[in-house]
């Protein structure tokens, strides 16, 4: 039940967001700020990977931003 509910909420959310998004955004010449390095979703890929690995090893959750990570015995 829980799984079906979260899948439905996720899909409805993404579709709503995608359809509602068509009126949002900027013109190509208005991307000066968005093009800045510090405005990228992942500014520091190594730090992101390190954090994912630490929290994967110490907590019962992983992923979200990308794949679940892992690949370690992680005692």
């Amino acid at each position, binding site marked *: 039940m*829980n*799984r079906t509910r*979260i*899948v439905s*909420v*996720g*899909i409805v*959310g*993404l579709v709503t*967001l*995608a359809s509602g*998004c*068509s009126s*949002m*955004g*900027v*013109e*190509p010449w*208005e*991307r*000066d*700020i*968005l093009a*800045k390095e*510090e*405005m*990228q*979703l992942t*500014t*520091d*890929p*190594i*730090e992101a*990977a*390190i954090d994912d*690995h*630490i*929290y994967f090893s*110490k*907590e*019962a*959750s*992983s*992923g*979200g*931003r*990308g*794949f*679940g990570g*892992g*690949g*370690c*015995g992680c*005692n």
Partner: protein
Amino acid sequence: MADKNPKSVSAALAAATCSLLGSVPAAPVQAAEEPTWDFNTALLYYGEDNDRVQDLSLNILARRNYVDDRSLTLGLTVDTLTGATPNGAIRQNVPQTFTRPSGSSAYTVPGGELPLDDTFKDTRAAITVGWEQPLGRLWKTSIGFSGSREYDYTHLGLNGSLSRDFNKRNTTVSAGLAVAHDIWDPVGGTPVAFAPMLDVGDTGNKTGSETKDIIDAVIGVTQVISRRLLVQLNYSFSNSSGYLTDPYKFLSLVDGATGETIPRVPPPGAEGPSHEFRFENRPDERTKQSLYGQAKYYMGGKVLDASYRYMTDDWEIDSHTVDLRLRWPLGEYSYIEPHFRFYTQSEADFYTISLVDGAELPAFASADYRLGNFDAITAGLKYGWKTRSGKEMSIRAEIYQQDGTIPGDLLIGNQVGRETYPDLDAIIVQFSYHFSR
């Protein structure tokens, strides 16, 4: 300007002559861009208090950028791990002796102390290879490989993703899939589920290696809201099947009335456990789902990076994670970035702290504190700066603290008031260096 440089004058004349004569110059008019390399490197120290886990980690991520936005990414990580980790047993007022995972010796924990296994020592090497390229004007794809090797663990994985831009590239819809096959080859063998810990030299409770398979899928939308605001929403699904138990963790077998661990006397001349311990057992399947939202907001030079993740799984673990970073420029070449993260999770339905002697064994049980009920915070600061030649460096220092509680209904007899969640305090220090050539 030009007449100060005879060479440029002659070049200009040659070019003019060529164009007058209608001939084609030897070199192409538009020279192909040279591929460039980007190197992201980091040295990390992660250290837990009370001589628990210490990790020194070297990370290199090299990215070769070709024309047309194609790129090759190569990653290498080497971790050196040492220290002690909770073995799953509860405290006792008397010393407790445990057989080491290798089965070749034993260690003793003083009375009143949280039992930690101090044999934790490992070196881990991990590599990643990725290729990314556009497909036509609006599509982009990537494929990748990941592999890692530890003394007792091997990971092999493949991943791929596809994304498409819509709405003047203000909306990007992406989907990714990753599969992995991991192999456990624990020191001393894999313990049989709920098998008792045996004396030194007796491996009758161990078998060979085990495997697990993982499938991860992520779909997401990234949306430009305005010149200053960018948001992302992802839904992730992850299924693991196979051996999901921790082969080094076990539980104390206790008296149902007093809650004290059942004592055990090794045979004469043998060295072995002082009490009854049973190796843990987890389900052989786990399905996790998560929703993740991230926003980047630009405020007059400062950038707020805020994210939230909700995760739920069929082990009945629910978690919430909030992560906040504020990048604050200090002049043109440097910045500081405070970071705060809050995490909370509920315990797995089979999490317990001990097994009751004489009672029917549950189907699954684990006393691994990472499957328990706890909150965690991370707080830290990063300082980054850029040299005149374009190299970027940063240093960050953070603290990470876990603070948990054992649900009251899991405590029996004398365990009330004595057993507490093994709280964790750790520091993270990282130096990063980024350069291109």
